[in-house]
């Protein structure tokens, strides 16, 4: 009984740590970065991009087959590139978390699912959500211990 209690408290502590600690993590100093993203139906290569908060980023969108685009969630930025005409966009990654980027030029059937992911800093969106989920379930088990151990 006692060990079950300790387990739940540890779970709560772990969850809260996961939710909150990444915000205090020592951020790497901002740098200039250039990413070349190759777009072809229906994928970006690379599909995932990792940055640090404050980085000055240039995205180079290179279309490999037909006209594609890129819309970055959260930053509300967009780009369009024809094959042979690389499109460039520079911005400062000043919002932490993970953001989807999506093709914004209809490029065939699977176009709505042509999606990539840009993560700024540690993936706050995920660590916060996962930490909160674990904490929530720990609190739930603390509140309803009897039912749980029936």
């Amino acid at each position: 009984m006692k060990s079950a209690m300790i387990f739940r408290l540890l779970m709560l502590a772990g969850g809260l740590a996961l939710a909150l600690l990444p915000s205090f993590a020592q951020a790497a100093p901002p740098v200039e970065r250039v990413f070349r993203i190759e777009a072809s139906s229906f994928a970006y290569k690379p599909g995932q991009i990792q940055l640090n908060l404050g980085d000055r980023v240039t995205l180079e969108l290179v279309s490999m087959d037909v006209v594609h685009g890129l819309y970055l969630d959260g930053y509300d930025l967009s780009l369009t590139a024809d094959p042979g005409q690389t499109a460039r966009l520079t911005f400062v990654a000043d919002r932490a978390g993970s953001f989807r980027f999506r093709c914004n030029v209809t490029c065939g059937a699977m176009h709505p699912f042509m999606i990539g992911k840009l993560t700024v800093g540690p993936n706050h969106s995920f660590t916060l959500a996962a930490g909160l989920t674990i904490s929530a379930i720990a609190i739930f088990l603390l509140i309803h211990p009897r039912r749980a151990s029936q």
Partner: protein
Amino acid sequence: MTRHELTRFPLIKALLKNRWPQLAVYAALLAGFIFAIFAGFVGSPVGNHNFSIVFVWIAWWAMLILAAVPFFGRGWCAVCPIPLPGEWLQRGAILELAPTGKGVSLGRRWPNPLRNIWMQNISFTLVALFSSVILTMPLITAVVLSAMFFLAIGSSMVFERRAFCRYLCPVGGFIGLYSQIAPLELRVKTTRACASCKEKPCYHGSEAGYGCPWQVFPGGLQKNSYCGLCMECLRTCPVDNIAVNLRPFSSDLATPTKRLDEAFKAFIMVGAALIYAGVLLGPWGALKDAAYRIGSGVWFAYVGVFLSVLFVLMPSLYALAVKAGMLLAKTSSAVRPAFAAMSAALVPLGLMFWVAFSLGFVFTNATYILAALSDPLGWGWNLFGTANIPWQPLFTGLLAPLQTLVLIAGMLWSAETAQKVASAAGVRPLPVIIYCLLATLVMLGLLL
């Protein structure tokens, strides 16, 4: 548990009992359904500018999974136009009551071995395996909708009642599963009145209305799963014993299922939501390619993985969790009934997975609805002046927090459900709760 009878209010009751309002909704939706098929066949083959894709897979789907199912259970089934033509032929009338025998159905009984939702499990899985083209190509959507339409007519011609809805419809299966959660139910007021009722017109029909199209005896209703909310019994009950109630959420999960077909429905839904989140909304192009290139080697590999996750991996891990819970509780009965009962915990979890997944593409693509409203066929119309609204994802900043909240709520809800059903099943719920927690973390990892 408190219940509020909605049919107490004369206006609500009159609206539900009268056939005209229902028929009006049916007619409007049937016209919309036929237009969707028409658009799929003759409109632009570009999905995001075609009514069939935009209104079926964005507008209707959002309405279904974000509103209709969680709050009204089988509310969609109550107005779904697909069975209407078959039922018309079967009954010989659409509005008034036709004399028995006027219809043109063979009226066979649905075969016993198929009196379960395995066919629905299979039909949903089939649609899911081809979802990359069904969701994106108007022509394929039109073919699927037509197939459902004619299958519904055909089954009404051969079998009695609504065999398609009850046993075949790929959508009906999961609506039934998740309708257990809805805060709305149709039940009898007292079982005593039903016990003393000799004729059972609610099941067999009478001069006042048809026998239950869903093959359900309302007097025995324990849960929402197979009640289509068609209101026929409200019309036929001679002693006014039918009530539509507001009730607490997930009331039906207190009496969990004993059936493996229903348990597997829960796994299929959770597994499909996880795979969709990864394949459709994830950043991995190779997975999208595998899902899209139907008939190729990679697609068969995708099918293999898909089926293994849904039918082997998720259920067997769950069985292990249930077994662990039995060991903790020192019960030594069979695993199977406990496994089926504990699958109740996956019902709220799965629904919230689907809500979170759907939020991920509904808000992103909602502007297509406005554009397609003005130019539903991609023919260059501009009926309401909204045809040229550019694509713009909505609420992208709110998406992650909203998905997080939804998934946390689903997690807690499933933990509560696990606790509720655990003691009756003779297990300790903790392993199952951990299973649900891990599934939620995976879903979060895929979506965020």
